[in-house]
Every structure is written in structure tokens, then in C-alpha cells.
């Protein structure tokens, strides 16, 4: 059953790719393909629940969509018009760029402050406090780099990117907690116990996102 679903999903994907064959890439095309695929799959599922065979459900669903050539033409124009695309993506690209820079600076600020305080010979607890900036910086950096459209990849959707940021943030926070508690309490088991939850949540979320992701590579 699961294998069946997989082949149907592939067929839907192939059909949509074929539909927009030779159309120049754009973020709008990428989005439209995903929108069409999601809705088409749901329609096929409805047909199948009414007792249709997989293949027939796919055929019927595709036919009932109607003539998509107008939409294909729209996309072709967009793909050709590079200037328009640039306008579409610059605003979000600028925001992502600012986020990346802020993320890196925040991380650096955290690292330098920790190093500085550590060498001033403050107590470890005080010295590692600003490490929280590294956590925030890492999360911001992750979010920004994933939502940026590059020459090779399309932007990730915001919810997904935010989840990645949460995973990285949680992981870093786990390490941060381990460092602070480990250095202040002298008992290693305390630091392991306190960081375990955050590290596990971070790794779990990260793995889930990695394994469920869609391909954002630009093919053309």
C-alpha cells in the first residue's frame, strides 16, 4: 500500500514536470508545481476512496484538471523575464542576507565575550553566560541561510526553515546548558542530565526534517 502511494506520488510529480517541460525556472514555477502536486494527490486520493484503481484515478484526475496551457504560458513568460524574477526575489534575499550577517555577528560576539570573560578569570558560570548569544546566532543563521534563494537552490518555506532553526537552537542550547552546569557543579552527570533533553529534541527534529525534505535544487 505504501509502495503504491509512492509510485502514484512519483507519477504525479512526473506528470507535472512534463507539463512544464522547457519552461525557464522561477520561484513562482517552483511554488506552482508544489501547489498543483498537493492538490492533484488529494484529488486522486478522493477518487481512490470511491473505489477507482490507482492508474484510472490518476488519469481521471489529470483530465478533470482541464487545459493548463494558459498557466504554462504565464510561467514561460516569467521564466524568460529575468528582470521580473530579480524584483520578486530581492526583497526576501535582502532580509535573508541581513539575517545571515546578524547571525554570524551574534555568534562571534558570544564567542569573544565568553573568551574574554573566561580569561578575566571570572567564575565559569559568569563567563559562559554570554554563550546564549551563540545559541541565538546559530539559530538565526540557520533560518536565514535556508530561506535565501541562491543560484542553485530555491528558498525553503518559512515554517520548515523555522523548524530547522529550532532544531539547531535546541542542540546549541543543550551544549550551552551542559557547559554551564558542567563547569559550575563539577558533577559531570548533572550536566549530561540537563543537556540531554535539549540535545535529543534538537537531533530528533533535525533528523525528521532531513528525512522529509523536498528537493530544492534548480535543475535548469
Amino acid at each position: 500500500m505504501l509502495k503504491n502511494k509512492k509510485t502514484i506520488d512519483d507519477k504525479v510529480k512526473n506528470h507535472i514536470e512534463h507539463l512544464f517541460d522547457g519552461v525557464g525556472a522561477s520561484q513562482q514555477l517552483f511554488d506552482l508545481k508544489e501547489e498543483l502536486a498537493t492538490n492533484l494527490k488529494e484529488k486522486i486520493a478522493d477518487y481512490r476512496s470511491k473505489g477507482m484503481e490507482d492508474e484510472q484515478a490518476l488519469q481521471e484526475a489529470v483530465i478533470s484538471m482541464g487545459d493548463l496551457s494558459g498557466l504554462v504560458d504565464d510561467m514561460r513568460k516569467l521564466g524568460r523575464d529575468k528582470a521580473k524574477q530579480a524584483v520578486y526575489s530581492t526583497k526576501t534575499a535582502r532580509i535573508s542576507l541581513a539575517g545571515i550577517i546578524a547571525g554570524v555577528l551574534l555568534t562571534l560576539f558570544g564567542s569573544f565575550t565568553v573568551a574574554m570573560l573566561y580569561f578575566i578569570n571570572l567564575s565559569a558560570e559568569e563567563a559562559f553566560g554570554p554563550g546564549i548569544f551563540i545559541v541565538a546566532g546559530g539559530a538565526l543563521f540557520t533560518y536565514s541561510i535556508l530561506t535565501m534563494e541562491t543560484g542553485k537552490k530555491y528558498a525553503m518555506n518559512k515554517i520548515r526553515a523555522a523548524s530547522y532553526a529550532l532544531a539547531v537552537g535546541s542542540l546549541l542550547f543543550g551544549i550551552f546548558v551542559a557547559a554551564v552546569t558542567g563547569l559550575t557543579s563539577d558533577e559531570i552527570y548533572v550536566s549530561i542530565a540537563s543537556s540531554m533533553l535539549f540535545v535529543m529534541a534538537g537531533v530528533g527534529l533535525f533528523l525528521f526534517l532531513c528525512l522529509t525534505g523536498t528537493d530544492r535544487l534548480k535543475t535548469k
Partner: protein
Amino acid sequence: MVGTISTDLIRGNTDTIVLNVLRQGDSYGYEIYKKVIELSNNQYELKEATLYTAFRRLEQEGYILSYWGDETQGGRRKYYRITKKGQERYEQNKKDWNFAKEVLTRLIEGGFCDVKK
């Protein structure tokens, strides 16, 4: 389906139909498609191809906006929401339609004797 509606007749009203569905709550492509069938009492089906073209046009003109929903088994759904400008457009279109409907009915069914009375 008992009768048919010519594409010419429906074309000018696609946008209003979509706005009418969306003013009653956010929705996504396939659901809007099903709601149109439901609204028509199974008498009319608006092709998805027509719907997606309408979404693009309405969004460009600022009558609706779109956002991605959570992942479902089949992937992410793209939801649409009516804007304030879209609400106003809908009200205006409804008025225009009611006016046109009355005049057209008179033009198509009316006899000259009726007018004299």
C-alpha cells in the same frame, strides 16, 4: 447536470465565484474546487485550470493573498485569503451582477406587450 453554462457566460464571473468562496473562510485549490461544485448543487464544475489562473490574477491585483499551510501527507497546501480590497470588489461585483441579471432577463424573456403594461 441538466443544462450547461457557456464558457463565455461564466468567464466574467470566475473571480467573483472565487471571492465568494474565500470570503467565507481561507481555503486551498482543491477545496475551493469542491466548494464550487457544492455551491452549484452539483450543477457546475469550475475546472482547476481556470481556478489557478484566477488565483494568480486575483493575487496580482491584491484581492487575495496566499500563504503555505503545514505539511500534509501529499505535501504543503497553498492557502488563499481574501483581502479587504477583495471584499469590496466582491460587493461591487455582486451589485453589478444583480443589475445585469435583471436587465438580461428582460432582454431575453421580455415581450413588448409586457413593457406597455
